[in-house]
């Protein structure tokens, strides 16, 4: 028994100038189920809203159609008014007479006719509206940050500083990430470690941050505000509580020749090790693959020397479950190994190195203590060649996109070289110089103009060794493609930044999407750069695309604000415009047949499988179920479902069908 009120607004003269509002109201008043119909100068004004409220109360209206401006403008206003009068706000619909009718058509019968049609379709729709309640989701006010590089550190600190708990997990034994490997940072050339280390310590000491290093995400369930994460804490083979980080074990460990990951293979480490001196936590882990005890079953030197008896050879991986309300992914990136360019001789010639290796050479904490010496013979290179775009912007062999950071770090490298090796000669082969960013262009110009780095626009075709020199064959496209040959002592390849190995699996665990390069996908390229498609999961830093430090930090702070915003509420309120899979009484249970095509169609991974069991607990069928926490209400699944088993509240089958029917028929 519908009792619908129709409220036609003149909007001053905005509508009434071209639409006969009185006639619209009169016609609507004659429709079945319309109990009250009126036109008024300004419906959104207080008296206008009161008109609606009193009609709801006096006439006992079951539905309201406000025919005025765009619902994008005033739908919240009128729904609120309805709610205040005791009518479920979702029983109110708006006919857009202003933007879609009076403002775009001339005065005349046809325009009034259209206005009448627009009102009629919503009158008929409202008959099929249902009272809906906003969805309340509780929020667990703890964030999980995955990845302890600069982005993860920044996000953790920002969230922690808003007073919320953070769990930070890092797969390596120490936080710090790639930034801790860098020597100096562009465009200011301040020492990377110097600015990063205090942040790392802050993380370790922050009362709101729980740090788990050597830990990875095992699985994730749940939805915004209510995630359950399983974390695998890989065995460090030490008792962290007892370990004081004295370093006895690492000094005494007999296995000393393991290439150091931190030093990109340019230095060595022991089997029980701390990755770098400033590591946080500064406690060692045993690398079981290289440890003699784990290989041969004997050694235990570390156990013997440990003054606190902290070594635990039988320690196992621990799986712990944590409940979190939001997740920030800051897993960073990796660099593509340049061996896909055999003509550059990486791996064959020890003095052809990557940019990241150069960072270690230039770093004061690196294997050469900051002196630029070539790996083969420790000599200071007199001539050095830098190759930009070693893999980037190369759809044929590398990756099609621009890695973005290389132009800047190459300029930095060349500059550092010139500063450290006086009289040295440096060359940079480049395609274009991309130095968009505050002070970036100036930085590159400084390298060229002040420090005399030779920039050659062109590509290198081949590098080979001749008489202890690396012969670099290239062309200079600015000089009519003239061939260039440089006898270099060392070559540095600016290898492409790519997604981490395993990024795809992580995305699948998190139910977020990723782009063709396996970088995680943001929810909207412009307006939601730190959100993912999965509500409550945010991105920071280079896991989304190659990013430099300032960008990573900015993104991290952005993500942190999103988390803080989420945590500022005790409950999340969501519009109930979500999809629902029907449920029926036994023996049918649901008309869903469980083909789960909707699962692949859903942009939000909001559709789950539900087991339907009979009274004896036997599985009868598997059907789809929409997780109301994840569903955003796009309705893609609805149009898909062959059995019409999914419907979307607010835009149901009946509502949309009725709108079409009402539009084209006389009522």
């Amino acid at each position, binding site marked *: 028994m519908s009792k619908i009120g129709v409220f036609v607004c003149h909007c001053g003269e905005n509508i009434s100038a071209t639409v006969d509002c009185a006639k619209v109201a009169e016609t609507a008043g*004659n429709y*079945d189920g319309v109990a009250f119909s009126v036109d008024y100068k300004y419906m959104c004004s207080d008296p206008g809203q009161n008109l609606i409220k009193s009609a709801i109360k006096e006439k006992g209206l079951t539905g309201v159609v406000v025919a005025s401006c765009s619902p994008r403008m005033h739908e919240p206003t009128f729904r609120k008014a309805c709610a205040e009068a005791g009518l479920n706000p979702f029983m109110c619909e708006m006919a857009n007479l202003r933007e879609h009718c009076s403002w775009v058509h001339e005065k005349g019968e046809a325009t009034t006719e259209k206005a009448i049609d627009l009102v009629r379709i919503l009158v008929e729709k409202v008959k099929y509206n249902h009272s809906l309640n906003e969805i309340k989701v509780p929020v667990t006010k703890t964030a999980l940050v995955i990845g302890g590089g600069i982005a993860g550190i920044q996000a953790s600190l920002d969230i922690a500083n808003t007073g919320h708990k953070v769990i930070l997990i890092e797969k390596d034994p120490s936080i710090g990430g790639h930034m801790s490997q860098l020597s100096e940072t562009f465009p200011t050339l301040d020492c990377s470690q110097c600015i990063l280390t205090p942040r790392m310590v802050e993380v370790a000491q922050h009362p709101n941050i729980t740090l788990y290093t050597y830990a990875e995400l095992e699985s994730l369930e749940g939805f915004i505000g209510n995630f359950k994460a399983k974390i695998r804490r890989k065995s460090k083979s030490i008792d962290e509580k007892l370990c004081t980080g004295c370093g006895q074990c690492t000094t005494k460990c007999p296995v000393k020749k393991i290439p150091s990951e931190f030093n990109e293979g340019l230095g060595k480490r022991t089997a029980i090790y701390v990755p770098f001196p400033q590591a946080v936590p500064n406690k060692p882990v045993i690398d079981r693959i290289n440890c003699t005890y784990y290989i041969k079953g004997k050694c235990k030197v570390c156990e013997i020397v440990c003054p606190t008896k902290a070594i635990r050879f039988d320690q196992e991986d621990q799986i712990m479950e944590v409940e979190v309300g939001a997740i920030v992914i800051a897993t960073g990136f990796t660099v593509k190994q340049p061996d896909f360019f055999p003509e550059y001789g990486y791996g064959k010639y020890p003095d052809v190195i990557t940019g990241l290796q150069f960072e270690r050479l230039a770093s004061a904490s690196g294997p050469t203590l900051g002196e630029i010496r070539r790996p083969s013979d420790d000599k200071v290179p007199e001539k050095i060649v830098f190759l930009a775009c070693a893999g980037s912007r190369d759809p044929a062999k590398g990756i099609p996109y621009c890695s973005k950071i290389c132009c800047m770090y190459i300029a930095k490298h060349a500059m550092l070289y010139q500063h450290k090796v006086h009289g040295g000669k440096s060359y940079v082969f480049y395609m274009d110089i991309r130095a968009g960013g505050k002070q970036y262009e100036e930085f590159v110009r400084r390298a060229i103009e002040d420090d005399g780095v030779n920039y050659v626009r062109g590509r290198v075709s081949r590098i080979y060794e001749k008489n202890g020199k690396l012969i670099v064959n290239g062309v200079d496209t600015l000089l009519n493609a003239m061939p260039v040959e440089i006898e270099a002592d060392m070559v540095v390849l600016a290898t492409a930044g790519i997604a981490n190995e395993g990024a795809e699996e992580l995305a699948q665990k998190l139910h977020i999407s990723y782009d063709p390069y396996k970088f995680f996908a943001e929810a909207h390229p412009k307006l939601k750069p730190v959100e993912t498609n999965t509500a409550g999961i945010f991105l920071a830093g280079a896991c989304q695309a190659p990013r430099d430090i300032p960008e990573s930090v900015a993104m991290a702070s952005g993500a942190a604000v999103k988390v803080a915003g989420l945590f500022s509420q005790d409950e999340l309120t969501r519009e109930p415009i979500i999809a629902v899979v029907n449920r*029926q*009484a*036994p*023996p*049918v249970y649901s008309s869903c047949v469980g083909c789960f095509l909707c699962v692949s169609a859903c942009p939000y991974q909001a559709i789950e499988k539900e087991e339907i069991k009979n009274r004896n607990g036997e599985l009868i069928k598997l059907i789809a179920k929409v997780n109301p926490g994840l569903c955003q209400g796009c309705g893609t699944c609805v149009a898909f479902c062959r059995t019409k088993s999914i419907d979307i509240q607010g835009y149901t089958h009946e509502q949309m069908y009725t709108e079409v*029917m*009402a539009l*084209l*028929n*006389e*009522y």
Partner: protein
Amino acid sequence: MNIDKRLVRKDSLEKLFDILKQNSKTIYAPFSKNGKTSFMDAKSFAGISTGHIQTSESSKDIAFPRAEKILDYSKNKEGMSVKGIDFADIPEVVLWGVRPCDAIGIGELSSIFNWDYKDEIYNNRLSKVTVFGFSCNKSDEYCFCTSVGGNPGNTAGSDILFTRMGEDGDYLAEIITEKGLTVVSLAQNLFEKSETLEREKFLAEVPVRFNHEEIRKKLDKFFESKEWIEESLRCLGCGACAYVCPTCACFDIQDEAHGKKGSRVRCWDSCGFSHFTVHTSGHNPRGVQSARWRQRIMHKFSYMPERLSVYGCTGCGRCSRACPVDMNILEHLISIQEVTV
């Protein structure tokens, strides 16, 4: 009425057709398309199929259309106006080229529509139909009219029955009813008197395969038989058998609305569909296909004879020809006859 036998020359048929057309009769006759033969509104004599054993669909459409309006309604300020169908609008139809097993089916269909309440929509449609039966001069392995009381030259149901006397021969026309006579009177000269009329030797031979009375008796105790389950496992539950059947009369009633006005429509339905008997609660009295297949056979060979005193099967064999999974009713009936209960 005594059956009057006349000779119709083979080239007179077309003349007869034209005369009927001139008398504004609508003629439905069999035409072949896609390798199937169906009754269609015949605009001209050319193309009417003669060589077929049986049409793919029965001719029941004429009196019991697959979809027909039963009323129109419109809402107005004053309330509601509802209009039934005007029987005067139903055209006079000659059903041309009906096989005896279809013609007899009309009687069976009529018993369903008249056994208790009289369905005047059906009766009115039927009253406008004159049936031109054409005897069968060939048959196939699906035919079993003789097992259910019919035969290839059966006059029951036809107003005039034509029997072709030999391949490419002239026709023997048996004028059976007043209705038939009325049509004959429109073209008196085409129906010649002749002494040399023979029919039996031109009729197809259809051996008797089972005794339907015996089947009926057996079915009384056959309801719980496992046979139903075994025989129907391959049945896919479509409605092909019911829709081609000359006597299946299950129907649905549906409303079709267009704003303030619309119609109520009666349309075919089939007891083979899984949703046919399902309650709104979800409970389905015939929840499995074997129960639905059993219903089909029992209805035709047990319930109808008992309640309506007619069998619901004319032995036309269409359902078996139409079945996509070779559910062969004849085969099943024979096996029922052979099974000892």
